[in-house]
């Protein structure tokens, strides 16, 4: 029976069907399934598949948004069933496009997938100054600061953030993740960022890994 | 910049050094694939396809036809004057040439 529910959960996410996702979550809990298992073996594989399909052009942004919303609705119900202190919030993720850069399409996709995977997300938008990143991360109590840059000239904003975090003695408090078309693993290493994500699905995997090792 | 030059050295026909501009015109004005465009230009010039990128052969052809040479020959046609001849040679419409001719009152 649990297999059937897991499949139904994944299918609901894949179809972006919020009603079905909620119904499946309630049904699973009603049948006594472990809430954590219900998320990890039912809904998460569904949203992972959505990410993979988006990454290969088999599914598009509106469907991804619907899937993310269905995921959010289902996990809200399941989280209520998880005893205090054992909730499934993956962590707090702050994101923005660096100063001087007004590109935000890629960032939008990252935001959706992060939310769908249980992260609390604060999106600062585009053209965000280094000071604003740090100030907002402090207030939001972020676990990870993600920065996006689409130009070789604005990538410097990612380096500036690392420098300013170190100066302020905050580098150990926040993990940093960089992305954007011209950004590479080597760039991340050179500036001292904790991770580089090639795409939105990768960003989710890396964010999870960063917080597991934190 | 270096990247463009590297591509030109590795795989480009060579522009007005050879016959790259002529073959490009055929792709642009007749949607010809590369082999068809080369065959068309080779036939118009009376040379083999392999000769189209041979500087030693194309230099003389371009000079004799007055269609522009890469080194600057004093008084040799270049620019719009060379393009007028290229349009006639290839039997194509080059839009800048048509405009120029109409402005000068030349027949189209």
């Amino acid at each position, binding site marked *: 029976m649990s297999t059937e529910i897991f499949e139904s959960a994944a299918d609901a996410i894949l179809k972006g069907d919020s009603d079905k996702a909620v119904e499946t979550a309630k049904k699973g809990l009603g049948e006594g399934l472990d809430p954590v298992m219900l998320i990890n073996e039912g809904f998460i594989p569904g949203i992972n598949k959505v990410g993979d399909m988006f990454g290969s*052009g088999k599914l598009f942004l*509106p469907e991804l948004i619907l899937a993310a919303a269905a995921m959010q609705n289902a996990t809200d119900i399941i989280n209520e069933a998880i005893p205090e202190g054992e909730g499934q919030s993956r962590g707090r993720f702050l994101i923005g496009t660096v100063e001087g850069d007004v590109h935000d399409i890629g960032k939008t996709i990252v935001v959706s997938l992060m939310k769908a995977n249980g992260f609390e997300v604060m999106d600062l938008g585009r053209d965000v100054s280094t000071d604003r990143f740090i100030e907002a991360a402090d207030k939001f109590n972020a676990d990870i600061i993600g920065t996006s840059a689409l130009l070789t000239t604005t990538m410097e904003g990612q380096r500036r953030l690392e420098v300013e975090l170190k100066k302020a003695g905050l580098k150990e408090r926040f993990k940093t993740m960089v992305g954007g078309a011209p950004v590479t693993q080597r760039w991340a290493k050179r500036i001292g960022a904790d991770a580089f994500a090639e795409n939105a699905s990768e960003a989710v995997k890396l964010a999870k890994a960063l917080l597991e090792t934190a | 910049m270096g990247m463009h030059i*590297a*591509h030109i050295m*590795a795989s480009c026909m060579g522009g007005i050094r050879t016959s*790259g501009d002529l073959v490009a015109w055929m792709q*642009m004005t007749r949607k010809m694939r590369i082999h068809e465009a080369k065959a068309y230009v080779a036939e118009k010039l009376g040379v083999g396809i392999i000769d189209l990128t041979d500087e030693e052969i194309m230099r003389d052809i371009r000079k004799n036809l007055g269609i522009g040479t*890469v080194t600057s020959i004093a008084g040799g046609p270049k620019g719009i004057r060379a393009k007028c001849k290229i349009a006639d040679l290839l039997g194509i419409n080059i*839009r800048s040439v048509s405009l120029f001719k109409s402005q000068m009152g030349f027949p189209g």
Partner: protein
Amino acid sequence: MSNDIVTRMGDGERVQLSAGEIREDIQTGTADAAQRAGVPELTAQEQERLFDIISDPSRIVSVNPGEEVIVTDDGCSMSFYSGQDGAGVGVPLSRMQAVLTYERACGADTTSLGHSDYSYKPVKPIINFEANDYYNTSMMTTAPFFYGAQPNLGLYFQPDGPCPNAAELMPMGKIDEARRAQEEAAGHLAKDLVFVGSRLADVGLEGLNFDTSGSAGDADFMAALQAVAELKRKVPDLPILMGASGEFVLGMHGEVEYEGTRLAGLYPQGQVKVIETAGADIAGVAINTATTESLPWNLSRAVTFVKAASGASNIPVHANVGMGVCGIPMMEQPPIDSVTRVSKALVQLGKADGL
């Protein structure tokens, strides 16, 4: 196993791989492309030829005499005088001097002019300046001389443009509103593309390049297709090159169609067909370079996509070989060893009609 073949990663880093590792990357690269796009993998013989190109010990490789193709450019003349943003070398040349230097010193098959912003929208208010520069330069050039820029739908969304910002509406779940905003923006974009193309056509435009079409998604791609078709109706003899921006059209809208073909998710072999249907004369394809994979993997993948596109097309197919595209490493100064290997492989194995 010896590690004696020097190659690159997708971010340009030099690495040494064994012959076995390179062959394995070539195999997995072509398999990835084939699986994604639903096209055939490179044959064993083609993979072996690709291996030979990649493992050639020479620093620079090239096609054989007689195999050369046409190289069109994406604002290359700007690289003479622009700065880092345009991968420029900052030589103090005028636009005309740069174009003529590219034609005559570099032996370029075609040259081009473009606005520094490299988008069409900002050209609109300065169209007379552009038309004047284009006309004056076209009197001096001998090789085909394009005007080129990117459609760039993003400039039509607030705060840069008049339409509600789809990238903000989508995450709020306002899907219908986001789609409407994209449709409205696409209407503005198509109109501007036609306006700029028509005005330049009046001064003898030899060729128009819609470079990197679809960078803001399927509605962006649709607007470019519509503009091509409209320009071909208005100015039938205007040659148009329309290039794509990625290996599949990003579905930011998801439902827009062109002549009955859904554009979202369209891979190169489908992209060239709609470009052809719109009436363009040359189709450009662009394959993303993965920075964490090797040159053999990226190039094998690019060749597989390009070969499929070339096989499907009736018009010339040019592969985009700028930084971070079609196997070219993603870095500001792509290494020449990689650049020439990409060049050779896309022509010999990808059957590109041009680059």
